[in-house]
């Protein structure tokens, strides 16, 4: 193993890892916000709203993420009208295409998880809040979501970890994130194993941070 070569590769790998972290954090944040809307949409008594969100969830959960990334990056780029619209400066960039695709994808899965968590809340808990005159938004913010989040923590941990893995697909649209960086160096340096071991360790570290975070949150929300 060539230590010098590995040292010289580290800056590139870390730069790639930084892009990965950005993708994960941004798409998780945006995705969660969207997921809330999706979950509420699915639970809405308005048939149109629940129908639309249902279709969205179905579409994004039933097709591979890679296909979604491709469609957003290559598919939308096919249309002359999009290339000439104000959207193009954003859609032109692989970075934003990746964020959009990852966000839409995680929102569909997270929305489903959230819906399950919300529906699992015991009836009486919500009634008590209603009886005290809480408005719907307040009820959701103070009672429903805190309790739902507690039950969905493990499942949402899964989703966050899968997002870390999923960012590697962004290398398919030329983004040099961690996997992309490792590949590029590997194909130049003839030392693929070392590169992928390092990249793997970095991914594992990110996963570890998430699992520990979930464990911490679980402990913190445990109530007797």
């Amino acid at each position: 193993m060539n230590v010098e070569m590995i040292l010289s590769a580290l800056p590139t790998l870390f730069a790639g890892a930084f892009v990965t972290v950005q993708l994960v954090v941004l798409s998780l944040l945006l995705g969660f916000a969207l997921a809330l809307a999706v979950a509420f949409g699915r639970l809405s008594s308005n048939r149109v709203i629940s129908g639309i969100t249902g279709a969205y969830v179905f579409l994004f959960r039933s097709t591979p993420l890679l296909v979604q990334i491709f469609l957003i990056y290559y598919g939308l780029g096919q249309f002359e009208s999009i290339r000439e619209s104000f959207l193009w400066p954003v859609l032109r960039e692989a970075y934003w295409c990746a964020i959009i695709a990852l966000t839409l994808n995680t929102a569909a899965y997270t929305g489903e998880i959230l819906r399950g968590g919300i529906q699992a809340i015991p009836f009486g808990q919500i009634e008590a809040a209603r009886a005290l005159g809480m408005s719907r938004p307040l009820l959701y913010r103070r009672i429903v979501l805190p309790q739902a989040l507690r039950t969905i923590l493990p499942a949402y941990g899964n989703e966050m970890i899968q997002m870390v893995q999923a960012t590697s697909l962004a290398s398919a649209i030329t983004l040099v994130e961690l996997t992309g960086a490792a590949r590029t160096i590997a194909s130049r340096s003839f030392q693929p194993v070392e590169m992928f071991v390092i990249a793997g360790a970095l991914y594992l570290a990110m996963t570890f941070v998430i699992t520990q975070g979930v464990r911490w949150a679980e402990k913190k929300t445990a109530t007797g």
Partner: protein
Amino acid sequence: SVMALSGCGKEEAKQAAPAPGGIPNPLRVATEGAYPPYNMVDASGNLIGFEIDMMKDVCKRMGTECQFIAQAWDGMIPALQAGRFDAIVAGMSITEERLAAVDFSKGYTTTPAYLVSTNANPLQEADYGIERIDLTEISPDEQAALDKIKGLLKGKVLGVQTSTIHANFADTYLADVVDIRRYETQENLALDLQTGRVEVGLADAITWNAFLQRPEGKDFSYFGPGFDGGLFGRGQGIAIAKGRPELLAALDKAIADMKADGTMKNLSVQWFGFDSSMP
């Protein structure tokens, strides 16, 4: 596919016991089946293509029987090392990187690499003063043309297919002037040429021909000289696990014979439309 671990698992490279004389019968040959016209699958699921025909001939000359296995590109080299088959014939270019992991027969085909852009691009108009650049030994003329190309490409976005000799070439010769984008497949590179996200693409002539002949490719053309030799120099070869000299020698002999009696050229013309066999 997330990671290409080509070259991984050297330590487990224990081959199946070699047959007497070192030539197994049948010879298990892996191919991708998705790289026309080198290798592909027809509508009834049969493997066909230049390499399939060639390999059948090679096997006949070695006095053995070919048994083809269709295998995704990603797992090929590790599976070869693990002894799951004896040879890979999949349009695989002979590169230093791969030579560290496996042995290659002599090359059987080669094609020059070309740059492509839209017809309207000013790059098309420039005079490069030379048709071919042989990277094995770069002459002053060739160096001048190379410098001119670098000058004109400065600041532009160049697309290549990832982990290919073309990517290596771009890394070695152009990395300081262009922004290199890496694509999983040639198809994707072609798509981004059309959207304008990349201005210039680099790939081999056979691949470009297929694109330029399609309706989407009608707005695009080659420009500048073709590149071969040096980095590109070794062409495509048959990969086998390390430490099987008899098999390697037999493959080399069969290929040399096919080149000598014109079989290779005929097959090439039949499948590619021109002679791309290596001298």
